[in-house]
């Protein structure tokens, strides 16, 4: 079996001695999205697979993790659960105009939601374990370390060490939230803790302008907290389409979040009333909770990579080629630990491509074009393809921008002042749709189908020839008739620094 695998896997080490016996064909370190996907599919292709993961806990550390990884335990899933919970706050307001008499006294039981969230995560953790065992993957609980190009050491809970040889080693240890190096930083929390707080904070300060920052700001605000969001740039969500960033900022403000652009934290001081936040503008905000959503770092410190010669970049991310292979031919890496595009479905794609390439006899590379993504602020933002700025920067020719900004029909009665905004960026010459964005209710759900169309190079004409589903918000994507603006290719456009 092992020999056959070797022949199939085109990219397998050509110089390897065929007679070498390994405990496993593949040993995976880290059972998150990418690791589990790679392990399962490799096993399905006939490989003998082992995987190790740290013990379960909602808050991760060097020695704590859990099968399922960030997405399931400390990321997408618990976050989405809290976003659902928080969204009801706005719903209740809207319901009144529709004739619903909601009692003045509304309680939100944070503890109950937290308990149910934990239950759900434990359930998923169990499902993941089952997925692995059903696929015949051997799971070890403990901390994995690479001790040689084909040698992994697992330190178990009781301190005993197991050592296994493997033809291939896959690093899929993910990443962890980082704190900003600010005096008093120990008073702040990261997203891990934010998903498991004992009490709902009445006053929250969020530092950061990325998607995690705006999501938590929305969650707490939706549950009734006072929220201050501090970020360095003029607008949150750097890297997204500028126009959409402005829409998100407006919506966050409209929902009652206090925005502090061009602001960072100078110091955190413990005080009687709570944590005192001193900004670089000299402002003081007192909060029950200060969340640092200031970035994540790859989990590579304790893997012993240096000793075996696996190269990492200055952020600590494992360097890989387009097949997810490191500079050591028998060692591979997928997911956030490689810091390519840090999204669950991308880690899944990388894990799948790894399995196909190494054990499936179908060499393939992950394709990072037109990967859709979503920011679950309230209301959410979702995008696929290029932003207007990226399209201009690529400078392949003039682009056409189509936008639609409208008040959803539901708001006509609820009186909510919140526009849904949609945008298509189109190549003027080829008519190809280069990018689509939407900020408004159900944006992530709507964007998935649009992503299929974009991925396959759909033209504006193909969008136009699709009949709308009426009455929906999504139909705006196929009924944008008139060009909002035409933008000349590249060169002269000054770069903004929003």
């Amino acid at each position, binding site marked *: 079996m092992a020999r056959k695998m070797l022949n199939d896997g085109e990219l397998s080490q050509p110089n390897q001695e065929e007679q070498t016996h390994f405990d496993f064909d593949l040993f995976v370190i880290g059972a998150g999205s990418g690791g589990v996907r790679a392990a399962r599919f490799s096993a399905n292709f006939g490989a003998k697979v082992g995987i190790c993961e740290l013990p379960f806990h909602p808050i991760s550390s060097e020695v704590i993790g859990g099968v399922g990884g960030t997405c399931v335990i400390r990321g997408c899933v618990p976050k989405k659960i809290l976003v659902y919970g928080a969204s009801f706050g706005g719903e209740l307001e809207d319901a009144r105009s529709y004739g619903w008499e909601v*009692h003045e006294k509304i309680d939100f039981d944070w503890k109950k*939601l937290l308990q149910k969230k934990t239950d759900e995560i434990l359930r998923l953790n169990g499902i993941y374990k089952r997925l692995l065992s059903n696929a015949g993957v051997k799971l070890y609980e403990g901390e994995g370390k690479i001790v040689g190009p084909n040698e992994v050491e697992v330190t178990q809970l009781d301190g005993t060490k197991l050592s296994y040889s493997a033809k291939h080693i896959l690093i899929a240890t993910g990443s962890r939230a980082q704190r900003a190096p600010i005096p008093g930083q120990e008073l702040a929390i990261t997203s891990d803790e934010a998903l498991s707080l004992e009490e709902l904070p009445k006053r929250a300060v969020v530092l950061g302008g990325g998607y995690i920052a705006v999501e938590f700001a929305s969650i707490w605000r939706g549950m009734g907290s006072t929220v201050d969001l501090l970020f360095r740039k003029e607008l949150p969500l750097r890297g997204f389409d500028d126009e959409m960033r402005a829409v998100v900022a407006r919506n966050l403000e409209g929902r009652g979040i206090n925005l502090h652009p061009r602001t960072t934290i100078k110091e955190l001081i413990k005080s009687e009333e709570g944590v005192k936040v001193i900004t670089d503008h000299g402002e003081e905000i007192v909060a029950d909770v200060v969340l640092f959503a200031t970035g994540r770092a790859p989990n590579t410190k304790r893997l012993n990579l240096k000793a075996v010669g696996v190269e990492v970049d200055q952020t600590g991310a494992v360097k890989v080629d387009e097949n997810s292979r490191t500079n050591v031919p028998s060692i591979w890496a997928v997911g956030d630990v490689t810091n390519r595009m840090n999204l669950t479905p991308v880690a899944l794609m990388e894990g799948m491509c790894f399995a196909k390439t190494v054990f499936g006899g179908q060499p393939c590379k992950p394709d990072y074009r037109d990967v*859709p993504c979503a920011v679950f602020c309230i209301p959410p933002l979702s995008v696929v393809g290029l932003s207007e700025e990226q399209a201009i920067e690529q400078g392949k020719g003039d682009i056409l921008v189509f936008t639609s900004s409208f008040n959803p029909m539901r708001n006509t009665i609820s009186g909510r002042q919140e526009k849904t905004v949609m945008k298509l960026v189109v190549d003027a010459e080829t008519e190809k749709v280069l990018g689509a964005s939407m900020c408004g209710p159900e944006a992530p759900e709507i964007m998935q189908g649009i992503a299929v169309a974009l991925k*396959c190079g759909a033209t504006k004409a193909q969008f136009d020839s699709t009949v709308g589903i*009426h009455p929906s918000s999504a139909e705006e994507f196929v009924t944008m008739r008139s060009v909002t603006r035409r933008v000349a290719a590249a060169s002269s456009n000054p770069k903004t620094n929003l």
Partner: protein
Amino acid sequence: MATSVTTPKLTTTFYKRLPITVPLSSHFLSLQNTLTPFSHNCCSLLYFQCQRRHVAARAKSDNGAELPSHYDFDLFTVGAGSGGVRASRFAANFGASVAICELPFSTISSETTGGVGGTCVLRGCVPKKLLVYASKFSHEFDESNGFGWKYGTEPQHDWSTLIANKNAELQRLTGIYKNILINAGITLIEGRGKIVDPHTVDVDGKLYSARHILISVGGRPFIPDIPGSEYAIDSDAALDLPSKPEKIAIVGGGYIALEFAGIFSGLTSEVHVFIRQKKVLRGFDEDIRDFVAERMSLRGIEFHTEESPQAILKSTDGSLSVKTNKGTVDGFSHVMFATGRRPNTKNLGLEKVGVKMTKNGAIEVDEYSGTAVPSIWAVGDVTDRINLTPVALMEGGALAKTLFQAEPTKPDYRLFPLPFLLENSAVPSAVFSQPPIGQVGLSEEQAIQEYGDIDVFTANFRPLKATLSGLPDRIFMKLVLCAKTNKVLGLHMCGEDAPEIVQGFAVAVKAGLTKADFDATVGVHPTAAEEFVTLRTPTRKIRKSPPSEGMTGPEVKAAAGV
């Protein structure tokens, strides 16, 4: 109600083309999402060369500039609904002098009441969707309990607040429509129009002459004549009831019946649906038909299948009983019929001037919307062609071109077929039942008939929200593929947000994409929609020959999609 598949919607394009001089109020701007998306279609139609001589002749004389007009108007439109407003507005934009008459505003239509905006805005899609929104909250309250929200007392629904707010919105919309007409320079006359002769319309005793007359008076719900039918209400009345129906019988199994069943059930009425067939939604995919009925039953709606009302009886306590071929169901406060519509052609004077009608009362028209009388035309539901707002808009726009731009233009119905009207097309559609349905392309049954060998992928799962809320909600998704080419022939979904989700996929299906293209697309995580790009194992493969090979292997589906 058939018209209500489409709400009129004011797009940016729409009012950009208008010579509007009044400032656009925020009210006006906020309407953007409620006026038709199809405004473009009549502009993007191919211009048909006139092939039929009599039409050509008509069109030519219509545009002959030699004769100075001795008419009051170039065009007089009877009925200011979707089709009439569109035709009048375009005609005015082309330089014609136009008048339009419409009955006074009322939420319930009759021989003497109507309102600018027509069925779609006042008694169709708009009010229906607003009531759907209102009714969905009860389910959201149930969900929110699972997410930690608690209410001092259970939220109660106040019917009159809803109806008052809904009617205020309709008033606002009808006002906007009036402004659109006035701003286009059209003379708006309130009253009942009657055709006196081929060039004269009588509005409440005052006579107006016109070179062309357009009849766009629409249709009205139809209640079959059974004993006690006078106790029944139609969809007009159902959208404007003075108080909540405690227990309502809805007769019909089409999308209107299901939408109303969801509305009343959500607003806490007891709902019974009587359908003639074995299943709801004839013409839809069989799996979807089963799934939606099952889901609606779980939310407390009782379906009486193969059961047709034969009489409605009123008992001494005022409650209504429905007598069917199977027995009698008692205790209804309301009985609603969702059993079709009829054209509004009575008492219009049509017979007298020689306009021909079908036995249903629909005006017979040629492909240019011309009636048997050369100066009289008709568009929209009154012609009973395809009774949808976007179709009426297209017909109206095409007619304006034919009459006032010397471009004889036929409406292109290929743009608008619904799956159950024209089978092989990638036209998406939605049913706003609860849970709602979105679909595009062929049903499994249609695909088998047309392609023989097909592969079917399905997913039936509990969404993340339901695992927390504890409610028994599920989502069903289905892809129907051509076995030979791997092309996606049909895509169906029933569950939360289905209409929104399906729109983007409709672009992909319309573009002829394959399953491989779906598989190559990265998911948006975590969403329900991502399931459509992560379906991996066929549920069944159907082969004409050799006999079909069964295949079932629903994978354990982790919510996170590994």
